């Protein structure tokens, strides 16, 4: 196996202009109740980034290695050959900044046997009454070491957890999934309880009545599929390389959508990769650049983009590690769907989505409803099925956001959003 030190020695011998080596020694454990399975995995992954300056510009190569055999010198030669054949206009790396001060390790998992910890967590899991729940839990602990030619040296240990469960009551079931850095942040008991409650609601659910309505996205619907959920277009569009090529609607200095700067509660979003225990956090990014918090949207206007080292150099700025966790500013809305219905005549409170598909170029999305509640005339009627099509960028830029916040995975922001005008089909 080629180790990081051998790689570094080989790089120094070959006088590479600029390089970064990232090594991840990972331990994983999976406990799966449904399959009666305990799985342990040990693996090492390494990333080698080389920049070689030549008279015609700077060549860059990035190697992802999951099988470290052979010689470090050969590997560096290969990387240099790749870099020499991919020369782009010249740019200079900025001096390394201090890694972000962020905690990404669950102290309870710092020394624990991961397989035993996963099994114990499942054994101690509180299950909802009146429903059955089978769960699986995957725990990852990784020791990360980063070293660069510019003198950056950083080491940290991180934990990453993923839980999945199937909650069943009678002849209905719901699948739930959660990701977190700490066992306590998974919120699995609450997720199971919420699923059990929604199973009860779905037993009485009828058919959707198409028509115009106000749309309330609850947390489960808003963050469907994990990650940034419906907020994903804001992260995707704030990619500096895409923005520079004009491939997104996002333009720094312009409203994120027409009229977004004049909304009652103008949207504010920041990327914060230094948020303790958020799943998108890390001290150093994938290119060896320090991670920073930076604003993406302020009062409805695009103000920042994620900057890799190269994009930062092109713009004469410091890199910020790219878009990581999204921090969405809270609003003043009380989250009351019934009150929204009283104002608008009808409000559809979306509890769960069946599918969410987003066009990454435009932000247009199709939301397939799995369970929703139709608030109208003082009554609340649960229903299943139906779909809503939204230009998510415009809709969320003008949406009212709840004052109550939630933190889940790479998202910290309002627990619910109210889109004043939508059409249920």
């Amino acid at each position, binding site marked *: 196996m080629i180790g990081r030190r051998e790689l570094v020695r080989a790089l120094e011998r070959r006088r590479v202009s600029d390089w970064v080596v990232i090594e991840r020694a990972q331990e*994983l454990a999976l406990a799966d109740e449904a*399959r*009666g*399975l*305990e*799985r*342990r*995995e*040990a*693996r*090492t*992954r390494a990333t080698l980034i080389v920049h070689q300056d030549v008279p015609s510009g700077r060549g*860059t*190569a*990035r*190697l*992802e290695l*999951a*099988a470290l*055999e*052979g010689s470090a010198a050969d590997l560096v030669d290969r*990387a240099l050959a*790749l*870099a020499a*054949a*991919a020369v782009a206009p010249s740019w200079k790396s900025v001096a390394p900044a201090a890694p972000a001060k962020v905690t990404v390790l669950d102290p309870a998992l710092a020394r624990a046997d991961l397989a035993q910890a996963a099994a114990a967590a499942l054994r101690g899991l509180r299950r909802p009454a009146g429903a059955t729940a*089978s769960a699986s839990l995957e725990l990852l602990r990784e020791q990360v070491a980063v070293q660069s030619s510019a003198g950056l040296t950083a080491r940290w240990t991180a934990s990453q957890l993923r839980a999945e469960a*199937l909650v*069943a009551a*009678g*002849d*209905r*079931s*719901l699948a739930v999934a959660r990701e977190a850095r700490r066992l306590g942040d998974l919120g699995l008991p609450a997720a199971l309880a919420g699923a059990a409650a929604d199973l009860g609601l779905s037993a009485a659910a009828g058919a959707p009545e198409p028509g115009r309505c106000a749309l309330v996205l609850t947390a489960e619907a808003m963050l469907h*599929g*994990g990650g940034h959920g419906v907020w994903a277009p804001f992260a*995707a569009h704030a*990619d*500096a390389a*895409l923005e520079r090529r004009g491939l997104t609607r996002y333009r720094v200095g312009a409203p994120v959508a027409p009229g977004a700067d004049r909304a009652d509660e103008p949207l504010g979003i920041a990327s914060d990769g230094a948020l303790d225990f958020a799943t998108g956090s890390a001290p150093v990014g*994938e290119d060896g650049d320090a991670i920073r918090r930076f604003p993406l949207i302020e009062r409805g206007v695009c103000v920042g983009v994620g900057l890799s080292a190269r994009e930062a150099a092109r713009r004469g700025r410091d890199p910020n590690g*790219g878009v990581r966790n999204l921090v969405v500013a809270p609003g003043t809305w009380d989250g009351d769907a019934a009150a929204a219905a009283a104002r608008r005549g009808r409000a559809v409170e979306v509890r769960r989505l*069946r*599918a*969410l*598909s*987003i*066009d*990454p*170029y435009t932000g247009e999305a*199709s939301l*397939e409803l*799995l369970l929703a509640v139709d608030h109208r005339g003082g009554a609340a009627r649960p229903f299943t099925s139906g779909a809503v*099509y*939204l230009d998510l960028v415009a*809709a969320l830029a003008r949406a009212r956001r709840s004052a109550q916040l939630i933190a889940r995975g790479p998202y910290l922001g309002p627990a619910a959003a109210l889109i004043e*005008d*939508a*059409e249920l*089909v």
Partner: protein
Amino acid sequence: MLGPVPLSRRELLGALGAASGSTLLWALGCGGPVRPPSTPARVSGEVRTWLRDAVARLAAAFPAVHVLAVSRQRTTAAVDVLGAGVARARRDGVVLAVRERSGRWREQVTSELTQAGIAAAVRALAGASPRRASLELGEPPPLPPEPAALDDRALRERCEQITRLDGKLSSRIVYAAALVDVDDAHVWSISPAHDREQRLVRVRKQALRAAWNGTRPVVTEAERGWTGGVDDLDLPREAVEQATEDALLLMTPGAFEDKERVVVLDPPLAASLVDAGARALLTSAAARRPEVRRRLEAPPPLPAILAIADDPTAPGAYGGFQFDDEGVPAAPIALVEGGRIAGALADRAAGGSGGRGRRPGHVGAVEPAPSHLRVAPGAAPHAALRDEGLLLEGAIGAAVDPGTGRAVIGAARARELKGGEPTGRVYADVELAGDLFALLGQVSGVARETVALPYRDEAGGEPRWRSVEAPHLRTRGFVRARRRRA
């Protein structure tokens, strides 16, 4: 999640610098000679010795043992308006799976396909005991044939050949690219009862086109995939030119009325529907859900003209294999036959004989999954199905909810048909929605020409390969336009 963009497109744009998500690909451009992977060919016998020793030691401690090892190399070559590039990535892994006397399964996985790495994994499961069970495995299987190694220059040339195929490129095409993607996996599967080895070289060739239509980009692609040599098959010129024509197609402004209609699904859409349906409802994992069990206990009748099977033995199938990742030899499974649901895809964890236990990248957690789904061809030419309704083309994602069986299939375009001819009206971005069994139950026509499509996605950073072979299908369902005002 940004759903509707196929992974291959992200990979391609990432590789060519148009997106920031490129992690697997090494870099653009390398003219050096290819270095053959040293592990598979040179030391196959050595690897077998280590694995057999691991099985012998584990079999002394556990009633059921299976060891799976893989040495994998991925090579991707791409050419576009910005230049050409070749990327290579490498992954090794060993999965030791044992069943305890209590019935619980334990797995130890390592990325070290070395004697020391395997021995350490064995110690983690069985301790340091030197005891070994006696194995009667006989002679090792013959070494699979070594695929021809192509250097970077040759791969770039294959990409440029795809680019040269297209005589319909115009200035309205703002982006054009060609891709050749080769996943070469050498897999060993050994238990006290068997010793198997296979070499799966999965090849995809793809052409990508993008053009602006009003304020929206339209991205189309032609793709073909198989298992075998890089030069065994080519992308047909007609498919590449059709991708260009589809990207340039001017759409009819406005939308049509949302309602139930007769629709003809082109092979990519039919494949997308069958793939999503089989994975959501017809696996042993899906059957853990009470709704799925209930639906499958009394499924609605299906038309006799519809027959669907999963067949990993289909010659050259991109998703095919000789044995699955639990070591079970490949055999076809009928899923829909004689007007009813005839079977499901299972791994051994489900308690049966299995046969579709598949691990992402041959090293991930096992899951029941399809290999090569085949919709049996019908008797009529596909043109004969196009009488009335809408012809839906260009799959942009399908979802089937296992809880309700509701299917939603996105289509890039809908061409209006009347009297057996297209009217010339073409609507962009539509979707077909309905209950999966109702959509399949109303199939009234199956074309005789089929198209095989490769699927490559990832789970936990590891690839999953499968393919679907499907003809045009005529059915009936609710069609609606996706674009609305908020």
